[in-house]
């Protein structure tokens, strides 16, 4: 088992004919992901290194039975691409696009919730998802991940996701699935949804959570862990020594209160029984100890 994606996931890449789409789409395919098609309006009938290109997601789904989409298009086209995928019946959309306006993200998320409840969005502005040896959708280098589990990873930061994979793989500890939820203001999938999926996944024995300063998602995750999680969790929060972030006027202070600082997040997680590490290396070491004890 793995969460959200596995070897049966059939993926279409929206924006496959662009330079990023081609590079990562082909790289995902070469990793073993079942990339069954690409979508670029006006380029239907072409192919990219043997991957057929369709004019629309609907057409791609009809022809290939695709169940997941990898959105790799520029910010101004990304929301339309996500909604097109949802409208075509795609169940799982990964959007790596960085730089989408926050209001567009908010409208997109609410549109998905109200009109397309069967579609899960991962991202935007995330590295994607990898179930090592089975499926890799996004921009993560497949070689830094290690198949076989038992660790699930969920992370808000792209490069720290790679760092976490690297630390575990270097110690011989594999992963079931590694999910990068992205650091944008309106993520399609949050920590709690990933933690819940890992909790239900038989192969996952422990979870590593990588957070960062700002917002209150880590505090909410801590509450959920305290109430529902039976599997051990190791966490690292980046930004203990970061300069105090831009405070969004009084409104920011009113909403978050003392929440949002690295210390508040670490305290909340520790209070929920999570092993909190001071840096990514220490998080890896803690997780190795946990895995050996399982």
């Amino acid at each position: 088992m793995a969460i959200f994606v596995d070897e049966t996931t059939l993926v279409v890449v929206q924006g496959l004919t662009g330079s990023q789409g081609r590079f990562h789409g082909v790289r995902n395919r070469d990793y073993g992901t079942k990339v069954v098609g690409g979508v670029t309006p006006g380029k239907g009938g072409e192919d990219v290194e043997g991957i057929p290109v369709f004019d629309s997601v609907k057409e791609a789904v009809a022809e290939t039975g695709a169940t997941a989409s990898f959105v790799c298009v520029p910010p101004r086209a990304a929301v339309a691409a996500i909604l097109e995928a949802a409208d075509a019946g795609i169940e799982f959309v990964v959007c790596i696009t960085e730089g989408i306006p926050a209001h567009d993200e908010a409208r997109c998320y609410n549109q998905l919730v109200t009109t397309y409840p069967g579609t899960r969005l991962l991202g935007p502005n995330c590295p994607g998802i990898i179930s090592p040896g089975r499926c890799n959708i996004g921009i993560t280098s497949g070689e830094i991940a290690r198949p076989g589990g038992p660790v699930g990873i969920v992370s808000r930061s792209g490069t720290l996701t790679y760092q976490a994979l690297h630390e575990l793989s270097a110690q011989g500890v594999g992963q079931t699935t590694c999910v990068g939820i992205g650091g944008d203001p309106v993520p399609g999938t949050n920590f709690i949804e990933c933690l819940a999926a890992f909790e239900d996944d038989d192969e996952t024995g422990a979870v590593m959570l990588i957070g960062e300063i700002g917002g209150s998602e880590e505090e909410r995750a801590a509450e959920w862990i305290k109430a529902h999680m039976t599997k051990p969790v190791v966490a690292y929060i980046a930004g203990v020594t970061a300069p105090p972030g831009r405070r969004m006027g009084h409104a920011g202070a009113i909403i978050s209160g003392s929440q949002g600082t690295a210390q508040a997040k670490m305290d909340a997680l520790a209070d929920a029984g999570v092993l909190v590490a001071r840096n990514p290396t220490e998080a890896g070491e803690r997780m190795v100890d946990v895995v050996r004890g399982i």
Partner: protein
Amino acid sequence: MDLFEYQGKRYVARFDVPVPAGGVAATVDEAVGVARRVGYPCVVKAQVRVGGRGKAGGVRVAGDEAEARGCAEAILGMEIKGHTVHRVWVERASEIAAEYYASFTLDRPNKVYLGMLSAKGGVEIEEVAEHDPAAIARRSIDPLVGLDEPTARAWVEAAGLDAAALDGAARLLCALYRCYDEGDCDLAEINPLVLTTDGRVLALDAKVTLDDNAAFRHPEWAEYAATETEDPRERLARERGLTYIGLDGTVGIIANGAGLAMSTLDVVNQAGGSAANFLDIGGGANADVMAAALEVINTDSKVRSILVNIFGGITRVDDVARGVLAALDRVEIASPIVLRLDGTNAAAGRELLEPHLSDRLIAAPTMLAAAARAVELAV
């Protein structure tokens, strides 16, 4: 991007939020000119992006031209919490009957918009939030539905604003919501929102934060670029597409991705050092970007060593290596550089650097080892 009050007022006014007549001035003579135009009494307000300017003497009322000149002379050039006042906003003084608070921002946990309105406005709104949270009427707004006038009226009544303010406040809230939504604000905040003795509802201040990601559809935002940052190094970095924040330490930091950059600050601190900056070269950085990052840090005389911490994903490590070598070719880098390179094309990157390694260009096998070495060199 945070706007100054004068920019924020003009921005909300575009969406029909009523603001007092006024103008911005960079010199005493200009300030007097604006005062003459708006009439007396007028208020002269320091333009700084930091709170507490009233308490610092940065907001003064003038009854005539001589006083206006005196106020402008006192405020221009003043230091408020480390910010120098380069401009004042001069506006006709309002006769205030009541002060309220209004704002729109994103409710991140619930992924909808959040409006906040309070009959207890003024400078102490954060204390109100803490000690009397019921005094703030919150409204969740579905981004797909928006805010209409009947809803706004009900909201004004629920917040307990004076009856005389009902029509004006409801209209102002709808206008401010349009500004927040169509104007792509992360935050649109009016504090104080006032009811004047003659029954008008006005924005006496405006705090507006624009969403940088929406700049592509707002060519009019270009005018804010010149005033965005006063730090020359931050400006230089921004021109090169880098996210740079200056700090007080001695280890220059370059990393890719905000998370890894923050984490790098953490490990430098844990190794007993302190970072001179936060610098994220972003995703997909190429050789030019890397070279620019080194050049920006090189202008900081506090820096004693530079730590480059890269985990390639979209960013390719061989490009990073080429950037380091290009920067060393172009300019003399004053401090030794410690490199930690992993991820996409890491082997190729390390190979490129290998012949150039010295006591000025040092490779480290891990993030912690790199931090320890950089701190050692910075002491």
